[in-house]
């Protein structure tokens, strides 16, 4: 009995120690970063020697500042999402609503594999496609913003597909079957009921994908990021990005000023990623709230049917009324 007591206490103590060790290491890493870098966070870190307003509105070149890298990252994230969202959402809708049997299983396997491929391999793929096109299509193609964004789009594509699919599949049957019971077609059900319902969960996944695009370094370092390019001017040119800047500084810094800007860049990237992450969780928390608030569902669905474009509303309304008169109140 005593032995058992001792054994149990050891397990409890070890478990607490593990948690403390983990929390301690994270606190040390973040604390060290803030301790070293907080002092460098100011306007000069971002804008260098250029006046902020002139840099933003007059397009004056920024030297010794992080602005080009920040704008480069922003351009990269937006461009990658422009490619990834339509394809990913469409594929996700297919998987949730149309996909059946063996074909769906194969797709699912392929998306899982795509999600697991190390980002550096995706980068190598993007790089070799660029070189291949350079040799065979046009001499003007070489690793650039467009190639990097396309590669990143492949990296986050499986996330967007999965979140779309899961968001649609987790809609309760009661909501899923309401509109078809009122005579809505499958397509009307998807576009007026299911998609609006899944929107916040999908948004949360997309925001997480943004975070991944913003923090990834391995893909872009092979597909066109450079240490100094200035503001991104064309999608066919090289560009700067925050994560690569941090990597570059850690390996190539020449004086303490550059090193300090590396710490500053690391803090800024950390803040951006945490904000995106927090946003995703905020959206998701709201989404779970709407799901538990069942009583509001009926009203929302009828509102959505009423908001449909006129020609569709007509048919929906007719069906709505016939259902109501025929079988009592369904809604």
């Amino acid at each position: 009995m005593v032995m058992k007591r001792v054994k149990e206490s050891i397990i409890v103590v070890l478990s607490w120690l593990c948690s403390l060790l983990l929390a301690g290491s994270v606190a040390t890493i973040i604390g060290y970063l803030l301790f070293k870098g907080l002092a460098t966070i100011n306007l000069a870190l971002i804008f260098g020697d250029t006046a902020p307003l002139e840099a933003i509105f007059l397009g004056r070149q920024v030297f010794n500042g992080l602005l080009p890298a920040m704008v480069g990252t922003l351009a990269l994230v937006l461009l990658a999402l422009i490619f990834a969202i339509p394809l990913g959402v469409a594929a996700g809708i297919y998987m949730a609503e149309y996909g059946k049997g063996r074909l769906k299983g194969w797709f699912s396997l392929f998306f899982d594999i795509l999600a697991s491929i190390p980002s550096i391999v995706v980068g190598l793929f993007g790089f070799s496609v660029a070189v291949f096109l350079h040799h065979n299509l046009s001499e003007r193609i070489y690793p650039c913003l467009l190639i990097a964004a396309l590669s990143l789009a492949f990296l986050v594509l499986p996330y967007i597909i999965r979140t779309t699919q899961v968001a649609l599949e987790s809609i309760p049957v009661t909501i899923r079957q309401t509109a078809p019971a009122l005579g809505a077609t499958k397509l009307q059900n998807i576009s007026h009921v299911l998609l609006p319902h899944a929107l916040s969960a999908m948004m949360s996944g997309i925001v997480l994908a943004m975070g991944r695009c913003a923090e990834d370094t391995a893909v872009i370092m092979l597909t066109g990021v450079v240490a100094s390019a200035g503001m991104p001017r064309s999608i066919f040119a090289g560009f700067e990005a925050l994560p690569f800047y941090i990597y570059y500084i850690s390996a190539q810094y020449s004086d303490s000023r550059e090193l300090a800007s590396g710490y500053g860049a690391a803090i800024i990237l950390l803040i951006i990623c945490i904000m995106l992450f927090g946003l995703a969780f905020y959206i998701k928390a709201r989404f779970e709230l709407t799901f538990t608030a069942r009583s509001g569902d009926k009203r929302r669905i009828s509102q959505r049917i009423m908001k449909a474009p006129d020609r569709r509303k007509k048919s929906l309304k007719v069906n709505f009324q016939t259902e109501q008169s025929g079988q009592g109140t369904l809604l």
Partner: protein
Amino acid sequence: MTRARLIERALLLAATVSGLSTVSIFVFMVILGLPILTAGHFSELLTGPWSPDHGVYGIRSMIVGSLTISFLSLLFAFPLSLGTSVLIAVLAPRGVALAMKRLVRFMTAIPTVVYGFVGIFLLVPIIRELFVHGSGMSILTAALLLAILISPTMILIFVDSFERVPRSYLTAVAALGGSRIDKLIHVILPCSWPGIVTGLVLALGRAMGDTMISLMVAGNSVGLPQSILDSSRTLTGHIGLIISADFDSLEFKALFACGLLLYLMTSIMVVIIRSLHFRAGVRGW
């Protein structure tokens, strides 16, 4: 064709394009790496040293580097994650458990390059002075940092599978007079083994696929490492270090062999996890 059918076709097309991208990455790697996979280079590729000056493009030391770093990091991270998830799911009071869970979620938001950056300026000097061996950039350094990087992956999956254990089982243990540790050892852990294996495999995949940490703190030397305090280069780091623009050289072709190897290893892990879920009926992660 009606509009509804047209849209269904378009959605199918999107899924097909996405699925084909997986295949096309594989095909690209195979085709471009073919010259070094055939023509008698194959055994040399897997077992030989990396010395481009002598025309030998072996990636053995990168394979060894990748495997040692990722398994060592798993060795550090697994007990750490198991302890933390036990605390979150079973032992801690509500407030502490929630705070720890938030911390773990927060950790998944920290960019890898930030870990690497802090690692270079904080951990590398510590390792250098502690062991007085080389530059401080070593397998051990990378494995320690990676352990922190992959822990959240494991913890979130572990906690999730612990919480899936049916409540009635736990009540049964309590009714028999068992303590919470009895619940843990005799019910919760045995019940959640598929989740634990899934977490381990996923974390291994993350460790093996990570580029920035090993690139930044493992030292990248091409020799075969003799101890965990030696500097080493991983498969991912090797790809990340390409400087040669000579697309047709064998030196460059060897990168595709590295890429192919990484692709195959992570795909095998995916298949393992999927079959595990299929058999155990565990739902998503």
